[in-house]
């Protein structure tokens, strides 16, 4: 029974109307929840509402994405306007959307907003119009319009308006939910595609070979896809070619460039065993096509098990560490920039090579993801931390050793992809002791400064640091390097810890411990957690982490230390004299 038909007992009529109305809303919500076709569901809802209110016809218009148009998504009755587009302020329905308010027009022909061209096209005679906006939390999604009441004089009454308004709010909520669900489904689909990409990418990494094969690698992506890669392959004469690369930036772009670089390496390494020439050719290729300031730090090498020697070329990559048989560590810094920046950077297109004799030691090539990662106690691993992990795992067989090292840094969410490749010069290694850290005996505070985390504060911070370290007896170059490193560390806090939101505070403290200057930078931002980074950050391409590189170059030590309460503490140290 509809209210239009009336009933003898007003109280009973009211109760029955309410029950029917609730039933209608329940049906509509169920439709929206169970169907993926939003327009079909809108048509069903409209049909129910039109019948229930007792109108000759009805239409649902939704605002377009731009908000400039309203488009008819559903129609019921003697005309079909589906697909009709109106300006968002055209017609009585447009007025309802624009003002986010109900409209009841009892003499449509004389209403200034009435669009007579629609009747002209459909042959329908509009006399009376009822309109209610589809609104969720003050946001208007569109409007529902009913025309000509079927009963009596075809004029709508105020109770009809109340009824339509109630129906419209339920329909709007159901529509918003359905759209939200559709968005979630799309995100799921994209995640599925990324997972597929990750699987293909894992396929680019080589299979581990059983012991005593002397080369092994491990890769832990910080997100689904990785910007790092490693590879190794057996060449003629039993020699083994290997490579490690780290693409600047993160996300899908980095993963695509990684795939390209890894494929180039694999393809070229089979025909040309010179690591320097190989990097030269890859450099040319990447320079020709890489975009948006992306580049790759990369090491290529060839190991000859017969001689125990490695020939290696390094394009701007983290210095590899040689862990000697006696427990000592030796670093081999890059002298050339990364590949992908300039095709003419190296003479005759060839990167210089160096020869490293393993002398039964193991060479570790790694990406900065591991030195930036946090170990179990929450402290940043750093090069010194990595040395300890290497020494602590030295008694293990090669691939177990790499797994053990990786497991140590995989207990907190990774900030960056982690890759380690090792070339083992001996099949039997003895456990070794870790080098001990020297403790300072004399401590003196040189500076304590608290300032807002904003770019316009950095100049005065630089001046204060310059004064403090000059007074401590630093030379001109040393002072400049320190100022640069502190500035870069502050920038990282502003951009990555506080994510550019103003109002944060940074506290800088400089201490002197004998002939070492120690810098503490404290912030009060949330601890950076990669797993909570929003999807749109996938496209984040930083200028290749030049800042982090500058800090490492300028300082002797740097890294995060555990912070007892909120915020993060970054520590840097520099030996003077």
């Amino acid at each position, binding site marked *: 029974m509809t209210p239009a038909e009336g009933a003898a007992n007003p109280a009973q009529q009211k109760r029955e109307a309410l029950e029917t109305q609730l039933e209608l809303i329940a049906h509509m919500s169920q439709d929206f929840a169970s169907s993926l076709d939003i327009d079909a569901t809108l048509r069903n809802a409209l049909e129910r509402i039109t019948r229930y209110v007792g109108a000759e016809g009805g239409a649902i218009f939704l605002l377009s994405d731009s908000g400039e148009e309203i488009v008819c998504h559903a129609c019921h009755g003697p005309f079909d306007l589906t697909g009709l587009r109106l300006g968002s302020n055209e017609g009585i329905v447009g007025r309802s959307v624009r003002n986010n308010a109900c409209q009841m027009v009892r003499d449509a022909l004389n209403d200034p907003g009435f669009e007579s061209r629609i009747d002209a096209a459909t042959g329908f005679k509009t006399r009376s119009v009822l309109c209610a906006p589809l609104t969720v939390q003050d946001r208007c999604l569109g409007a529902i319009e009913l025309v000509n009441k079927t009963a009596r004089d075809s004029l709508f009454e105020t109770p009809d308006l109340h009824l339509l308004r109630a129906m419209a709010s339920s329909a709007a909520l159901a529509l918003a939910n359905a759209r939200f669900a559709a968005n979630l489904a799309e995100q799921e689909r994209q995640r599925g595609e990324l997972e597929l990409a990750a699987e293909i990418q894992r396929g680019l990494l080589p299979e581990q070979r059983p012991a005593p094969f002397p080369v092994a690698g491990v890769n832990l992506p910080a997100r689904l896809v990785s910007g790092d890669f490693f590879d190794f392959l057996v060449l003629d004469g039993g020699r083994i070619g290997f490579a490690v690369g780290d693409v600047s930036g993160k996300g899908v772009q980095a993963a695509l460039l990684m795939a390209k670089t890894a494929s180039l390496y694999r393809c070229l390494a089979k025909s040309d065993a010179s690591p320097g020439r190989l990097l030269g050719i890859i450099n040319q290729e990447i320079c020709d096509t890489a975009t948006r300031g992306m580049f790759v730090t990369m090491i290529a090498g060839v190991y000859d098990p017969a001689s125990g020697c490695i020939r290696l070329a390094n394009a701007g990559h983290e210095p590899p560490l040689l862990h000697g048989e006696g427990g000592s560590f030796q670093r081999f810094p*890059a002298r050339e920039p990364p590949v992908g920046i*300039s095709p003419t950077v190296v003479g005759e297109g060839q990167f210089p090579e160096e020869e490293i004799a393993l002398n039964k030691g193991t060479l570790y090539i790694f990406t900065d993801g591991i030195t930036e990662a946090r170990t179990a106690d929450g402290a940043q691993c750093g090069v010194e931390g990595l040395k300890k992990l290497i020494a602590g795992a030295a008694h293990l067989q090669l691939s177990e050793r790499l797994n053990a090292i990786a497991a140590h840094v995989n207990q907190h969410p990774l900030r960056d992809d982690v890759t380690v490749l090792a070339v083992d010069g001996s099949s039997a290694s003895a456990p070794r002791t870790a080098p001990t850290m020297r403790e300072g005996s004399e401590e003196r505070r040189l500076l304590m400064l608290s300032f807002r985390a904003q770019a316009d504060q*950095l*100049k005065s911070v630089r001046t204060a640091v310059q004064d403090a370290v000059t007074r401590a007896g630093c030379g001109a170059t040393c002072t*400049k390097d320190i100022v640069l490193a502190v500035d870069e560390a502050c920038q990282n806090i502003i951009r990555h810890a506080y994510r550019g939101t103003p109002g944060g505070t940074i506290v800088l403290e400089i201490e002197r411990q004998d002939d070492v200057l120690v810098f503490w930078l404290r912030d009060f931002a949330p601890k950076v957690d990669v797993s909570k980074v929003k999807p749109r950050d996938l496209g984040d391409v930083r200028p*290749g982490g030049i800042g982090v590189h500058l800090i490492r170059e300028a300082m002797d030590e740097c890294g995060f230390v555990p912070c007892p309460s909120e915020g993060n503490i970054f520590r840097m140290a520099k030996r003077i004299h």
Partner: protein
Amino acid sequence: MKHTVRLEQDTAVVVLEGDVDLEHSPAARKVLLECLQQGRHVLVDMSGVSYIDSSGVASLVEAFQNARRKGTRFALAAVSSSALRVLELARLDKVFTIYRTVADGTAGNG
């Protein structure tokens, strides 16, 4: 930081002065890319750069890569010792074409 641009034939000489830091490097990036957009060769006079950080360096790298794709010249000239130190630390001193003086640069670019 302040910047000025003057034209010497088809080369835009961009003079950067002061601190090219996080606060000011967006302005440096904008002027460099605009000059390249207009199809000019670009020579950056860095004699007055008292300080440059990674954001400033990134602006130079982006302009350099942009110029290389367009086939136009991009070079630095009269780089101050402070700025040169940072370019060395970033291993970029070998990447950029660096002229001793602005006059050398415009002659080389002419």
